[in-house]
């Protein structure tokens, strides 16, 4: 069996297959990346992207097939030896110790010593040099926990540079970044490729891939569909390859809401940590979009409304009645549900199965005489699985094992278990594939059509535009503008979000 390395590749996988127990997840994949190139991997959730990059970086061993690094067949052990040899994986959930400083993190495991002690001065100087080279304004002594997600990402990249990475593998680095932050990241990536670093890049955002990648590999259901030069592709053609079918109507048609529908949620002059003087109305059957840059205070508004944070000032009324929720239990009972954007940290218990997660917020519903009834919970799960098309091989396995899309659908199902009249969805499609996105969009539209009211907080402008009847734009904790009808377009939202335009507040 030949194991010829494709021309010029620094790292390649040859006929790599992987099974977990009985279940195959990758089928005979060929993949390679060359120095100075960005090679994107794209596919729906569960297509095998994560498994492939884990194999490329040594965290998983292939069931069959081989890895060729630098011209030699290599066995990459999962103990960090791959990293020592120049293959660095930046995980989707960044792997930084929150309590260490930036310098400590960059040198973690590669500390410099002098006379047997840590050479703090040199390490700090080198860290600063690397950060300067990346054009990142981060204090080398700052604690990781004090940094924004984007800065943490930069620290990860700085760490990779410090390890003289020859292959840098990034798992959805832009999922949590704003537009501006994404731009900076891409500049860094281009700089690295100029220095001959090979980049493997996973993303769900087709426009990013078109902008950044030299080549694209499309995976579907563990199969290699194609590896092509980006120049030969269009976003549409990539999307088609991913899902294997024509993707039309990503967003369902908007049904105009009844202008006479009653106001179900009214917020006046709401101030809380991170936000001040926010006012808006939400009508029955309406989808209200919340747009703005990351950190503009959209989540803080939602958390203040549902009682996760105690508002400092302002009034909230539900169906005309003033309310002041002091915890989620009260707002949930009043028919108001909030779906967090942090599905792994705040939304789901990753070590538990589907059922306990689904019913966690609504357990009292499944009680009879003080005791939980298993059959009632089973039925709830069956209903949710049908309604939201949740796919799990084994419902008792921890949901941390599910793909992002299925986790998100489960979270949505959990949120809808309380049968709320008003749903606030924070980043409902973050980090999930196009097919699942489309499903979620249709669910949101269907909810509105039933007369429920939905607030969609999203950093994906297309999403806000495609779904919302009205769009509230936030900037630095305040309302920057409220857009309706034809005003709802990318340019207008951006103007308000970036502070070019300041609108009247309704």
């Amino acid at each position: 069996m030949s194991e010829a390395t494709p021309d010029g590749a620094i790292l390649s996988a040859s006929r790599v297959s992987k099974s977990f127990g009985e279940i195959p997840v990758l089928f005979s994949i060929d993949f390679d990346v060359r120095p100075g190139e960005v090679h994107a991997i794209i596919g729906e959730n569960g297509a095998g992207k994560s498994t492939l990059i884990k194999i490329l970086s040594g965290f998983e061993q292939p069931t069959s097939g081989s890895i060729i690094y630098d011209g030699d067949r290599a066995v990459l052990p999962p103990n960090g030896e791959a990293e020592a040899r120049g293959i660095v994986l930046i995980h989707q959930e960044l792997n930084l110790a929150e309590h260490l400083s930036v310098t400590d993190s960059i040198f973690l495991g590669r500390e410099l010593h002098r006379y047997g002690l840590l050479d703090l001065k040199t390490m700090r100087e080198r860290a600063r040099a690397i950060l300067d080279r990346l054009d990142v304004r981060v204090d080398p002594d700052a604690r990781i926990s004090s940094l924004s997600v984007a800065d943490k990402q930069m620290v990860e990249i700085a760490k990779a540079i410090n390890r003289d990475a020859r292959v840098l593998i990034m798992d959805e680095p832009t999922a949590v970044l704003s537009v501006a932050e994404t731009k900076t990241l891409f500049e860094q990536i281009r700089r690295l490729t100029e220095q001959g670093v090979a980049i493997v890049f996973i993303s769900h955002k087709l426009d990013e891939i078109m902008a950044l990648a030299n080549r694209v590999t499309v995976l579907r259901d563990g199969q290699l569909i194609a590896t092509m030069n980006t120049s030969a592709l269009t976003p549409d053609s990539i999307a088609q390859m991913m899902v294997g079918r024509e993707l039309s109507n990503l967003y369902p048609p908007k049904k105009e809401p009844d202008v006479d529908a009653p106001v179900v949620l009214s917020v006046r002059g709401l101030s809380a940590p991170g936000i001040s003087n926010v006012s808006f109305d939400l009508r029955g059957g309406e989808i209200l979009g919340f747009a703005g840059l990351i950190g503009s205070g959209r989540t803080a508004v939602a958390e203040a409304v549902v009682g996760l944070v105690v508002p400092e000032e302002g009034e909230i009324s539900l169906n005309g009645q003033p309310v002041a929720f002091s915890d989620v239990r009260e707002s949930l009972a009043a028919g108001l549900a909030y779906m967090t954007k942090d599905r792994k940290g705040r939304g789901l218990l990753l070590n538990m199965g589907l059922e306990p997660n689904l019913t966690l917020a609504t357990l009292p519903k499944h009680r009879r005489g003080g005791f939980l009834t298993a059959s009632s919970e089973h039925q709830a799960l069956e209903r949710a699985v049908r309604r939201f098309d949740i796919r799990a091989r084994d419902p008792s396995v921890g949901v941390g094992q599910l793909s992002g899309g299925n986790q998100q659908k489960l979270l949505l199902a959990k949120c809808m278990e309380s049968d709320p009249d008003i749903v606030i969805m924070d980043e409902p499609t973050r980090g999930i594939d196009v097919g699942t996105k489309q499903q979620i969009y249709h669910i949101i539209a269907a909810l509105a059509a039933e007369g429920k009211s939905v607030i969609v907080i999203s950093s994906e402008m297309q999403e806000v535009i495609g779904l919302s009847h009205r769009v509230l734009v936030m900037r630095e904790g305040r309302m920057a503008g409220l857009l309706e009808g034809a005003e709802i377009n990318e340019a207008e939202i951006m103007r308000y979000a970036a502070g070019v335009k300041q609108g009247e507040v309704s």
Partner: protein
Amino acid sequence: MSLASAGTDRLRGMRIDLKTAGPLVALILLCVLGYSLNPLFLAEGNVSNLLTRSAFIGIIAVGATFVITAGGIDLSVGSMAAFIAGMMIIVMNWAVESMGVSVGTVLLGIGCSLILGIGAGFINGFLTTKGKIEAFIVTLGTMGIYRSLITYFANGGTLSLDSDARQIYRPIYYDSLLGIPIPVWVFIVVALIGWVLMNRTAFGRYCMAIGSSEHVARYSAIKVDRVRTITYILQGLCVSLATIIYVPRLGSASSATGVLWELEAIAAVIIGGTVLKGGYGRIGGTVIGALILTAIGNILNLTEIISNYLNGAVQGVIIIAAVYLQRGSFRAGRKKTPAQ
């Protein structure tokens, strides 16, 4: 693949069995070992002694299972037991002096114990939740406080229950009902109630949720502080029940009472398969854990082949082996689960 098929149900059943089997296998092996070293190990009298003895640690460990499952820890239980035992004796002796001896004396002592247990649990819970101090520190603090208080009240010596009151109280430890000693009945009832609470009520589910992720619990409309506080109150109640059956045994309490019970209780919980960092609790396992711990000491007393000086080493080896068996089955369960 679709959900809730017969196949997945069968798979789930198998995994739970494996998890249970670890500690149970360890206990059975221990029993076989005990019997082979001295056949008297399985004699009726010895089994009865062993079960009665395991009741103290077992009852306390049932409470500890809730605390640990909800991500907490309670180091104060041993001192708390000594303190409650001492206060019971003081109150009962006082009652005997002022009112004479009757069943009421003992009931008064029991009432005093329940109030103190619940109160002490509440204090631990309140300080950890509202005071926002780590449970380890709070209970380390109360551990020292209760231990000092019992030493103070006993004047550094031993508090002894009035002998007439003892005669009335004695049967609670020494008598049997349907051939089963009363402390064992208490243990059985506490364990059953604990099992139902953990597995069949929203409260148990909330404990696991909070132990897995406090954030998720809060975002899921769970009153985290209240549930946490209740776990400590349950722990206090369990300590109180254990003390109620402990006092009639020797009729005395001193600063040496209940030393290291907290570690034994925590060990029983962990041997039983509950995860120390929280999120997953097993009452049945805890019961087995308590039996394993007691059986080790019993077997060592029944045999001569192991040097007395090595008792601690034998205990250590068996505890580690028991946990290894239980973790081994965890791994077998996990291997079946593919990522993504």
